[in-house]
């Protein structure tokens, strides 16, 4: 066993770090320096920079535009980007529908969609959740009626992140209402410009316009937009959720957030010294950092499994659980470090130091990390059922 990265891997880390430092435009770097909220245009700007470098899709096969990296390289890459505070790219195309198309799409679908996902020419969003179907996703009711050569879609999706900027949405829709719930769902790609699609943005509790209600009123969708077979969307979607959960591990993001806490604490006077010198506060930060270290190892172990060719299994639920909680707690500590500055809310620049400006908003929004991507309660249900094999109510 060897826990250290090889000299080649360390050299790769240095290369990534140097690239990020030189390639990030000043206005993005400025925001990164204070962990500001990146808008969609800024995320796409960074997307195009990584695309130009050939690094935008680390986990895609080389022949489809991936860089051909090892699992360790991908880990290092993600950690470096997150630690630098670079904009986190929209995952819906690159990390969700892209890999799904790679695995299940037809040749024509791959040719039609993948290049534009890579280049960022087409922006995607995810239409799974509905007002009545969140944790119980399989109960979804948005229906796609078969009209011969096309479907007609009616219904509502909700919490659709960045639907207001999206060109395409991938949806789970009900194509067969008369079979067992899971057996009547299809995976459908819908052009957002189609007549009958309307998007209503909502404010999050962090006061960012991050998600939307998306309505479908007699929307015509060509049959060729079904991925996989009709009525077999559920299994594919589940495979995708595993991917989504490993993404939420957010090791680098949490590392950066803890670093932010230390910076704030160091700049904060407390008695005769700084808050970082305060043993109580210091111990709190140390405890969280230890949690992160443990989480990072869990993530590496999962990746080592992936390197041996195992698909992300129910263990990915552990990564989602801990990753989401640690990130949340890091922002709780940042708020603690700010003291009364934690009262601030999008104030004029000099009311609080620049690196504290966004903390209250992100702190509020981050309550979502334990809710989206399958809530933490649902992750625990998965672990209890699939890993521990515990008996389930109503089943023998």
């Amino acid at each position, binding site marked *: 066993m060897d826990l250290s990265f090889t000299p080649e891997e360390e050299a790769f880390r240095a290369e990534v770090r140097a690239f990020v430092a030189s390639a990030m435009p000043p206005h993005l770097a400025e925001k990164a320096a204070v962990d500001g909220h990146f808008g969609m245009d800024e995320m796409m700007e960074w997307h195009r920079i990584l695309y130009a470098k050939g690094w935008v899709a680390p986990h895609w096969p080389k022949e489809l535009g991936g860089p051909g990296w090892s699992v360790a390289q991908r880990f290092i890459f993600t950690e470096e980007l997150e630690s630098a505070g670079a904009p986190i790219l929209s995952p819906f195309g690159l990390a969700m529908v892209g890999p799904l198309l790679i695995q299940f799409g037809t040749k024509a679908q791959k040719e039609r969609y993948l290049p534009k996902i890579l280049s960022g020419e087409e922006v995607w969003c995810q239409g799974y*959740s509905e007002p*009545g*179907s*969140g*944790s*119980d996703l399989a*109960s979804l009711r948005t229906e796609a009626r078969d009209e011969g050569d096309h479907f007609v879609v009616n219904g509502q999706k*909700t*919490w659709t992140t960045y639907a207001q900027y999206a060109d395409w949405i991938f949806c789970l829709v009900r194509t067969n209402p008369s079979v067992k719930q899971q057996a009547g769902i299809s995976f459908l790609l819908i052009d957002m410009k189609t007549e009958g699609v309307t998007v209503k943005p*909502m*404010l*999050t*509790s*962090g*006061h960012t316009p991050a*998600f939307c209600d998306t309505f479908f009123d007699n929307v015509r969708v060509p049959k060729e937009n079904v991925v996989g077979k009709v009525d077999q969307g559920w299994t594919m979607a589940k495979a995708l959720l595993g991917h989504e959960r490993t993404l939420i591990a957010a090791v680098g993001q949490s590392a950066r957030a803890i670093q932010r806490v230390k910076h704030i604490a160091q700049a*904060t*006077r*407390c*008695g005769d010294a700084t*808050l970082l010198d*305060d043993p*109580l*506060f210091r111990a*709190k930060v140390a405890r969280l950092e230890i949690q992160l270290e443990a989480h990072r190892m869990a993530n590496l172990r999962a990746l080592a499994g992936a390197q041996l060719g195992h698909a992300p299994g129910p263990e990915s639920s552990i990564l989602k659980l801990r990753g989401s909680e640690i990130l949340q707690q890091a922002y*709780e500590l940042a*708020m*603690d470090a*700010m*003291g*009364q*500055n*934690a*009262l*601030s*809310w*999008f*104030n*004029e620049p000099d*009311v609080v130091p620049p690196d504290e400006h966004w903390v*209250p908003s992100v*702190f*509020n*929004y981050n*309550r*979502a990390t*334990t*809710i*989206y991507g399958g*809530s*933490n*309660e649902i992750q*625990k*249900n998965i672990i209890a059922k699939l890993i521990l094999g515990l008996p389930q109510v109503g089943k023998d």
Partner: protein
Amino acid sequence: MDLSLTDDQKMIKETAASFVKKDSPVARARELRDSALGWDAAVYRQMGELGWLGLPLPEAAGGFGGTMVDAAILLEEFGKTLVPEPYLASVVLGGRALVHGATAAQQAELLGPMIEGERVISLAWAERGSRYDPEAIEARAERRGEGWAITGEKVWALGAHAADDLIVSARADAGISLFHVAKGARGLTVQTVKTMDGGRAGRVRLEGAEARLLGEPGAAGAALSRVLDDAAAAACAEGVGVATAVLWMTVEYLKTRKQFGVPIGVFQALQHRAVDMFVATELLKGTSILANARAGSDDVVERQRAVSAAKAQLSSGGFYVVAQGTQLHGGIGVTDEHDISLYFKRMRVLMALFGDEEHHVARYAALPSFTAGL
């Protein structure tokens, strides 16, 4: 021992409960967070007419001679619907600062109109470098003619943007002292600063601002310590109201929100969470009663022990309630549109005011009572 409310207190509680229910739904707080003032001046005056603004203030100054326990009864109700009027700012911080630090004549002069709801008083004690220590300040006061001139900067002075009277702490030759700076005084600028919960604070700049000494020079340390204990206890009382509202809102949601064909409250994982929220709320109630009852105590150790215990409990238990309440609401809990996100913010603001968990745990552990009997 008797923990029951007196008849007068019962009446205050009933009137306040009916006020928040009928006249001050959360929608009012939501609407007012975007207004210039942040609250409704007419409602504030109405509070004066009801006698609420004078509750914990001396009779000699026009008040009702009550205690922080009386104020806590009101604040707990206010917390239930996030009543935005500056009770904490004007009555507890402003009013009680005068009680602890000004002469009887000054109290009568300044408290009277506030008690009527005609004026707002704000206490400006915190500075950029002070964190939670009211004595770690740099603002300076110097004699100028008959009066004083203050130079310095104060931050997060609740309600200062609309204050008619500012109570400002500053360092004079004799030590830290309290001063009265009237609205519009020469050398005074107040910048309105929005707070996370939709409230308002002032950033107060004093450039040789015209001021009048309150009480004795150099005696403000003890007064500030006392008023911040009063305010911490008051924050706990309001926090109890916030937690109570979130608890029951969440329980209701667990009963009505359906997933997997059943109300989600069927799931025992969620039942236990709701029970933990309930237990935390009950514990908060207890510590809040203790803190508010002891806030008036002249025994520093007894007072600080109770206040610090309650305020630390607010940061752990109170936060638990609003964080888990949000979690159990799922996606809708993190929208601006749903009221729970407003309660979440208010709780976080209460946590950050008048000493956070860290501060109060440390203070609690440093009291002689902690090592007594060893």
